[in-house]
C-alpha cells in the first residue's frame, strides 16, 4: 500500500497540516494503526453478536459474506470456507443468527468487519443444542450401547443400499463392492439424503429394505458435505428406523471427522461410504489367498492320512509275514528233513543189526547142518518108501529099499538081513 501510493505521502507543503508538529500518516499507516487498536482489544478478539443476516453471498471460493444488522446498525461479516464447512444449516437472508468471531479491519476497503468462526441459527434453530439433546436422550435409552449392535454376516448375499441414486457415494460403494466381493446383489433403495424431505425418505427407504427377507445388511451412506448437508442423519426418526431395522445397518456418512446420530445407533459406523462397503463384505483377494491356504491344508491332511495308512499297511505286512504259511511250510519242510534223517539212520541201524544177526544165524545154521558130518564120511539112510530117517536097525526089514545120502549126493540100496549091531555097522 505504501509503495502503491507514494504520491500522496504528506509533502509538508501545506502549512495547516505541518503545524501539527508530526508528519502526516499515510492511509496505510493509519489503517494499520486502527487495525492494531481493534485487534489488541480483548473484548473484540472474541465477541458474540446477535443479529439478522442480510446480503448473504457464498463466494465461489466457499467463503461466506454477509451483513449482520439490527434496527439501528449493521456490521460486515466474513466467514472463511474452513469454518463455513462446519455449519449445520443454510444461512440465508433474513435469518436471525448468533455469530461468534473477532473484529478486524480489511485495509483495502477501510472496512472493519466481524470474522465469524461459528454461526448458529438463533432461537429454535440451534442445531448444536438439538443434536446434544437428541444424543443424550437416545443414549439414555441405551440405543448407543455396543451390546445392542449386531454382527455383520460373514458372506452377505444381498446388500441393501440407502442413498441418493445420483450420489457419488453410491458409485463409491458399488466400486468397492465390485472390486472386493462382486458376489453380492445390491438392492438400491433410493432416497434423498439432504433437505427437508430427506429424513422421511430415508426412513421409508430403510423400511422398504427391512420388509424384505432376502436382505443381509443395509448400507446407509452419504458423501461428504457441510454439517447442514448431513443433518438428515441426525434426525430422530432416522435413528429409530435404524434401531428398528431387522437387518444390521452400516452407516457411512460424510468424512472421517463427521459423526452423526445415525452413526451412533448403526450396528457399525464407517468413516466414509467406501469404508462402509469395505466393512460390509469380505475381500476377494483375501478369500482367494485363504482358499489357497485351505487347499494346502487339505493336501497336507491327506498326505498325513496316506502316510498313516502306509504305516498301518507296513505293520500289517510285517504281522502277515510272521503268520505267513510260508514260514510254516519252511518249518514243516525242516521237520520232514529231520524225520527223514532220523528214519534213514534208524533204518541203517536196523539193517546193520539184522545183517550181523543174519551172519550169526548162518553160522549157527552151518554149525547145525549135517553136511559137515556127511563130509566127514557119515551118511543118512532113509526108507525109500516114506523117507523116514533110519535111526534104528529095527526099522529096517530085509529087502527094504533104502536111500543113502552122502555129502555129495544120494544113491539107492537094498537092506539085507542083519542084527541090530550088525546093521549099524553095515550102514557105516
Amino acid at each position, binding site marked *: 500500500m505504501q509503495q502503491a501510493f507514494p504520491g500522496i505521502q504528506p509533502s509538508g507543503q501545506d502549512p495547516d497540516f505541518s503545524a501539527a508538529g508530526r508528519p502526516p500518516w499515510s492511509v496505510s499507516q493509519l489503517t494499520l494503526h486502527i487495525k492494531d487498536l481493534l485487534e489488541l482489544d480483548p473484548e473484540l478478539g472474541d465477541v458474540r453478536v446477535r443479529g439478522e443476516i442480510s446480503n448473504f453471498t457464498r463466494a465461489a471460493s466457499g467463503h461466506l459474506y454477509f451483513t449482520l444488522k439490527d434496527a439501528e446498525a449493521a456490521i460486515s461479516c466474513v466467514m472463511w470456507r474452513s469454518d463455513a464447512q462446519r455449519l449445520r444449516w443454510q444461512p440465508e437472508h433474513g435469518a436471525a443468527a448468533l455469530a461468534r468471531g473477532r473484529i478486524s479491519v480489511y485495509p483495502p476497503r477501510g472496512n472493519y468487519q466481524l470474522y465469524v468462526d461459528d454461526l448458529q441459527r438463533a432461537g429454535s434453530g440451534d442445531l448444536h443444542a438439538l443434536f446434544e439433546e437428541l444424543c443424550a436422550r437416545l443414549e439414555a435409552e441405551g440405543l448407543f450401547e455396543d451390546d445392542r449392535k449386531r454382527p455383520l454376516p460373514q458372506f452377505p448375499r444381498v446388500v441393501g443400499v440407502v442413498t441418493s*441414486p445420483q450420489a457419488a457415494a453410491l458409485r463409491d460403494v458399488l466400486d468397492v463392492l465390485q472390486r472386493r466381493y462382486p458376489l453380492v446383489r*445390491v438392492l438400491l433403495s433410493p432416497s434423498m439424503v439432504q433437505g427437508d424431505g430427506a429424513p*422421511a425418505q430415508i426412513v421409508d427407504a430403510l423400511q422398504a429394505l427391512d420388509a424384505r427377507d432376502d436382505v443381509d445388511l443395509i448400507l446407509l451412506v452419504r458423501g461428504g458435505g457441510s454439517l447442514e448437508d448431513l443433518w438428515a442423519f441426525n434426525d430422530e426418526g432416522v435413528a429409530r428406523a435404524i434401531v428398528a431395522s431387522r437387518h444390521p445397518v452400516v452407516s457411512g456418512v460424510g468424512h472421517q471427522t463427521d459423526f452423526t446420530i445415525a452413526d451412533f445407533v448403526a450396528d457399525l459406523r464407517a468413516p466414509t461410504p467406501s469404508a462402509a462397503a469395505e466393512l460390509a463384505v469380505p475381500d476377494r483377494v483375501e478369500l482367494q489367498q485363504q482358499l489357497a491356504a*485351505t487347499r494346502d491344508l*487339505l493336501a497336507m491332511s491327506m498326505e498325513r492320512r*496316506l502316510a498313516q495308512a502306509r504305516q498301518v499297511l507296513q505293520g500289517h505286512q510285517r504281522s502277515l509275514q510272521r503268520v505267513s504259511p510260508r514260514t510254516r511250510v519252511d518249518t514243516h519242510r525242516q521237520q520232514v528233513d529231520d524225520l527223514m534223517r532220523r528214519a534213514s539212520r534208524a533204518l541203517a541201524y536196523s539193517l546193520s543189526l539184522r545183517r550181523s544177526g543174519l551172519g550169526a544165524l548162518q553160522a549157527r545154521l552151518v554149525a547145525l547142518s549135517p553136511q559137515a558130518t556127511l563130509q566127514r564120511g557119515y551118511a543118512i539112510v532113509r526108507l525109500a518108501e516114506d523117507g523116514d530117517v533110519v535111526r534104528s536097525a529095527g526099522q529096517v526089514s530085509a529087502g527094504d529099499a533104502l536111500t543113502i545120502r552122502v555129502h555129495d549126493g544120494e544113491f539107492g540100496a537094498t537092506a539085507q538081513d542083519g542084527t541090530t549091531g550088525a546093521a549099524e555097522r553095515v550102514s557105516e
Partner: protein
Amino acid sequence: MSNDVKDLSFEQAVGELDDTVQRLEGGDLSLAEAIALYERGMLLVQHCNDVLDAAELQVQTLDQPDSPSEAR
C-alpha cells in the same frame, strides 16, 4: 455329500469346506472316507475360486414408494 458342488452358493461351499478340513484333520476316518473328503474339498476350493472369478456385481433399484414431493 452326494449333491453337486456346482449348485452350492459361495457361503455354503465355504462352510462345507471348513467342515471338510476339520473332519479330515480330526482323523478317525477310513482311508476311503478320507480320500472322498479330500476330493470333495478340492472340488469345493475350485468351485469357490470359480465363483469368485466369475462374479459380476448385480444392482437392482427398488421402486421409490414416494416421490420427493410426496415426502412426509
